[in-house]
């Protein structure tokens, strides 16, 4: 079980600040969804937590060790990253792709426990049926499951997902989110996910973090955060929020006049 405390996290290119002094905590077995308009810093925050980018500030594990002072290899034992798109993946089998997730733990030789772990996780995500199929021949939803499986094979304490439902149809969007949710509850791993769809975020997240211009606008439960006012000020969109089976459901009405659409 790991709680991540992010303190004074900033990142930018030159004078252009992308993330500005963020402070937040991600708890055990918790799904935190990052929401906000394009360019608000969702993906950048995910990449900073995984140290793919090099931010300023600290990322503390259980209030103690700082991820910033760890080697790449060590970070990989704590943080699993599921990238946004699977483009640019060289031809490889599903089994080998998932096995790659064992990299932080294994040497050159693949041990028996590594193979066991791969099979166990493939079964958990129900991708064992096409273990020896080429990754590039899978459908979008299957690919996403394989990438999640690879990250899980790292046995991470925190799973980072960058828009896991983009490019998926409705059924697969729900499927992937349900998978993530049940994994989080089963394994005790926590998840931070960048997501565009507010209603999917409301359905599956414990907490939301609203980002605007690289700063935290608000953080709290979906019920507290998904309000007409917040949606107006974050997205520049007029919307009504209705109660749908005890979950907030956002129905957009139109973009506000005078707000540039990006």
């Amino acid at each position, binding site marked *: 079980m790991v709680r991540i405390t992010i303190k004074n996290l900033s990142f930018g290119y030159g004078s252009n600040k992308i993330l500005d002094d963020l402070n937040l905590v991600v708890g055990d077995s918790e799904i935190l969804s990052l929401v906000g308009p394009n360019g608000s810093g969702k993906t950048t925050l995910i990449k900073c937590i995984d140290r793919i980018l090099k931010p300023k500030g600290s990322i503390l594990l259980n209030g103690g060790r700082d991820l910033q002072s760890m080697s790449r290899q060590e970070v990989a034992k704590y943080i699993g990253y599921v990238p946004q798109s699977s483009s640019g993946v060289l*031809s490889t089998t599903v089994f080998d792709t998932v096995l*790659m997730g064992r990299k932080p733990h294994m040497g050159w030789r693949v041990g028996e426990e590594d193979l066991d772990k791969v099979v166990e996780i493939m079964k958990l995500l129900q991708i064992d049926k096409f273990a020896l199929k080429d990754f590039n021949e899978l459908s979008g939803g299957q690919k996403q499951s394989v990438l999640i499986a690879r990250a899980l094979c790292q046995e991470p304490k925190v799973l980072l997902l960058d828009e896991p439902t983009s490019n998926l149809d409705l059924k697969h969007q729900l499927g992937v989110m349900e998978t993530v949710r049940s994994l989080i509850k089963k394994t005790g791993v926590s998840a931070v996910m960048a997501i565009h769809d507010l209603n999917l975020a409301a359905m599956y997240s414990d907490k939301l973090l609203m980002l605007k211009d690289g700063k935290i606008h608000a953080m709290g439960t979906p019920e507290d955060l998904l309000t007409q006012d917040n949606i107006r000020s974050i997205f520049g969109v007029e919307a009504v929020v209705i109660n749908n089976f005890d979950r907030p459901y956002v129905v957009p009405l139109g973009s506000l006049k005078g707000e540039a659409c990006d």
Partner: protein
Amino acid sequence: MTSDDAIEKGLLIDEYSQFVGRKLLVITVSILGIVALAGIAATLGSANITPLEVYSAILARFFPGHFHTTDFINTIVWQLRLHRVLMAIVAGFGLAVSGTAMQGILKNPLASPFTLGIASAATFGASLAIILGAGFVSGQYLIVGNAFIFTMLASLIVYGLAKYKGITPETMILAGIAIMYLFSAMTSFLQYVGESEEVHEVVFWMMGSLGRSSWDKAFIIFAVTLVCTLVLMILSWDINALGAGDETAKSLGVNVEVVRVTCMMLAALITASIICFTGTIGFIGLVAPHITRMVVGGDHRFLIPASGFIGALLLLGADTVSRTILAPVILPVGIMTAFTGVPFFIYLFLKRRKNYW
């Protein structure tokens, strides 16, 4: 876990083990192919000897009590033919491994050992020696030394340029193209001012040939290729991870830039040590990795060695054909590599249903 689950899990692991076993089989078959072809290659030439006599002459050197040979056959095999055969094997192996590494780290199917402008730099170095007689080392190693030094120089310049903009496949390829054109232009200039005999010698050097082979040269290539290949194989998981994208590789704990530069330098070192002796032998480093990837897949733990053995087989085959097809005229092997390899490549390319790249 229920017993059914355990059985199913075992079955899946077995299936994967068989999948790995097939790759090892390909490697074993190529090694056997090389041994067989080496025996045949050593029989071909103006003096007629049989494969059996060749193998006896080889084995007699190691087990003098058990195998017998004559002085005549011994001289032909050991002093005239075998070093050329060995040179073809190690050079083919090295070029293929180098090409595999370059394609892997640049994630580009068109990458080869010569992508970083290495071939044109080596040609310039050789031209400088042949036409102007100028270079870093003197005497009989003038051409070899120049070709080697300029090859390494080109890869250092590419590294420097790419480092400035961030070491990504795009920056490395673009820097490599710039370097290639620069050295090509300088070579063209030298050819323009050179005498026709000198230019002819440069052109012949560019075609690549194993005609200047010797035991010493083959041993140098062998040693460099062996060491570099072992290091590349140690890095094979990292190269695999690069295939999933730089960000994913980083998240899996790979130091992306260090791995990319290390592999590039190792590939350059292998290539430099080969082409400084043989001239620029093309095609092997580009196509052997492709052929192998179609057969064993993209896992560099197996792809690197398998590609090396397939490359060795291709170059040895091409050299054997180039020595015999118009005998007593010996064609430069650089001409033959494409003629012998392309049909096989096209056959696999058309036959494979799946996207292998």
